[in-house]
C-alpha cells in the first residue's frame, strides 16, 4: 500500500518560524488488488497539530474517505468488508469548545449477509464550565429481499348458537311426554318431540326368525317390576387432579335389555316356549312387547327355568337384548 498526497493548503499565521500550518490535506490511498487477496486492510494515521499564539480558537478538520469493495466472483463468497475509522479530536481550551464526530457507515450485504453497523462515540468535555456532551447516532439499515416466501394463515372460528325453553304448565310437564326441544346449530342429537307412535296395548309375542318368522309364541304380559335397562359404553375417568372426564363416541354400541317375568303360562304355552328357546338359540328373534313396540334381538338366558309353582301354572323370566325397530 502506498499513499499519495494530492493537494495541501497551508496558511501563514504570522512572521517567524513555526507560524505556518497545514490547513487541509488530501491524500489518496493506492491499493493493489490481487485475485488471491482475501482481506484488505487500510490503516491511515493522520496527526495534525497546531499551536495557537493567542486566545484564538482554531478548528481542526480531517476528511478521510474510505471506499473498499470486495467483488465476489463465481465460487468466491462470504468476503468480508471492514472499515474501521477512529477519530480522536481534542480541543484544548478553557473556553467551551465544540467537539463533533461525524461518521457515516454504509454497508450493503447481499445473499443473507449480516449487515451490521457499530459506532462507539465517546465525547468528553473538559473545561471550567459545564459543557454539553451529546452523542447522536443515526442508523439506516436496508434489507432487500430477493425472494418472497408466502405462508398461509388460517383462522377457523366456529360460532354456534342454541336456545331452549320451558313451559310452566306443571300438570303437563310432570306427567306427559313433553320435552322442550329448542334449536341448535350444533350437530348434537335431540330427543324426539313426540311420543313413539306405536305405543299402545298388546301382548308379548315372540317370533323366530326375525325375518319371515315361522315360529310364534304369544304370552301374557309381563308382571310389574319388569326392567328396561340402557347401557352405554363410556370412558369414565378421573384425572390426577380430580377432574371427571366422560367421553363416548356416538357410534359406540348402546345396549338395551329387557328383563321380564311372565306368570300364568299354560302347559301348551310352556311347551311352545321351550321349543322356541331351543330353536332360536343364539339367533335374532322378534319381540312385540306389551306396548306394541317391535324389538329385534336375542334372548340372553335361554337356560332360564320355566317353573311350575302351581298345577298347570308356569312362570318364566328371561332377559332380552335388542333394539327397537
Amino acid at each position, binding site marked *: 500500500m502506498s499513499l499519495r498526497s494530492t493537494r495541501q493548503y497551508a496558511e501563514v499565521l504570522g512572521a517567524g518560524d513555526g507560524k505556518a500550518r497545514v490547513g487541509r490535506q488530501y491524500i489518496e490511498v493506492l491499493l493493489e488488488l490481487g485475485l488471491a487477496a482475501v482481506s484488505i486492510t487500510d490503516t491511515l494515521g493522520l496527526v495534525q497539530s497546531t499551536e495557537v499564539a493567542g486566545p484564538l480558537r482554531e478548528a481542526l478538520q480531517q476528511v478521510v474517505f474510505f471506499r473498499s469493495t470486495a467483488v465476489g466472483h463465481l465460487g468466491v463468497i462470504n468476503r468480508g468488508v471492514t472499515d474501521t475509522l477512529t477519530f480522536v479530536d481534542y480541543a484544548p481550551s478553557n473556553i467551551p469548545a465544540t467537539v463533533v464526530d461525524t461518521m457515516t457507515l454504509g454497508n450493503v450485504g447481499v445473499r443473507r449477509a449480516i449487515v451490521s453497523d457499530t459506532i462507539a462515540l465517546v465525547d468528553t468535555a473538559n473545561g471550567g464550565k459545564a459543557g454539553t456532551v451529546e452523542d447522536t447516532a443515526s442508523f439506516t439499515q436496508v434489507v432487500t429481499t430477493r425472494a418472497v416466501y408466502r405462508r398461509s394463515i388460517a383462522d377457523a372460528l366456529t360460532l354456534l348458537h342454541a336456545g331452549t325453553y320451558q313451559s310452566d304448565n306443571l300438570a303437563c310437564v*310432570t306427567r306427559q311426554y313433553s320435552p322442550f326441544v329448542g334449536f341448535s346449530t350444533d350437530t348434537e342429537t335431540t330427543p324426539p318431540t313426540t*311420543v313413539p307412535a306405536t305405543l299402545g296395548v298388546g301382548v308379548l309375542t315372540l317370533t323366530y326368525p326375525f325375518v319371515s318368522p315361522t315360529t310364534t309364541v304369544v304370552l301374557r304380559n309381563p308382571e310389574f317390576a319388569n326392567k328396561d335397562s340402557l347401557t352405554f359404553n363410556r370412558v369414565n375417568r378421573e384425572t390426577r387432579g380430580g377432574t*371427571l372426564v366422560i367421553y363416548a363416541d356416538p357410534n359406540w354400541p348402546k345396549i338395551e335389555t329387557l328383563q321380564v317375568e311372565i306368570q300364568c303360562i299354560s302347559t301348551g304355552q310352556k311347551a311352545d316356549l321351550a321349543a322356541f328357546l331351543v330353536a332360536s338359540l343364539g339367533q335374532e328373534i322378534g319381540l312385540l312387547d306389551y306396548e306394541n313396540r317391535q324389538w329385534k334381538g336375542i334372548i340372553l338366558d335361554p337356560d332360564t327355568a320355566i317353573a311350575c309353582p302351581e298345577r298347570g301354572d308356569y312362570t318364566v323370566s328371561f332377559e332380552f337384548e335388542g333394539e327397537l325397530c
Partner: protein
Amino acid sequence: MLVLQAPLPGLTTTTVLPSPQFNDAQAGQHKVTVLRAMDGTRYTHVRTTALRQKLTYQFALTRMKALELCAFIRAYYRSQIRLTNHLGEVWRVWLVNNPFEFEAVERASGQPGNEIVSVTLECEGFLES
C-alpha cells in the same frame, strides 16, 4: 320439580321431572387412606375431588314421563347437563348411571301411560349456584 337441560353450554333441550322421592342424596367423592406407623403415628392420605359431588335422585314417573327421560338420556348420556333441583340449586353434572334402569313398579290408571316407572339417576358434578 327438577329440570334437566342439555347439552352444555348450548342448551337445546329441557326436560322437566317431578320432584324426586325422599332419600335423595348428595355426597362428596373424597377418599381418605389411613396408615399407622410402627410408633403409632397416624398418617392420612387424601384424594380430593375439589367441589365435585355425587347426587342421587329416585323418581316415580308416569310411563310417558319415563319415556321422555329415556329419550333425554339417549341423546345426552355423553354430555354435560344442567340440573336444577327441587331446592333451586343449579348443578353442572354428568349422568353416571350405567346402566340406566327403568322399572315399571305399579299400575296407575288415569296417568299417562297407565304405569308408574321407578328410575334412579346418579349425577356427578359441581354446584353452579
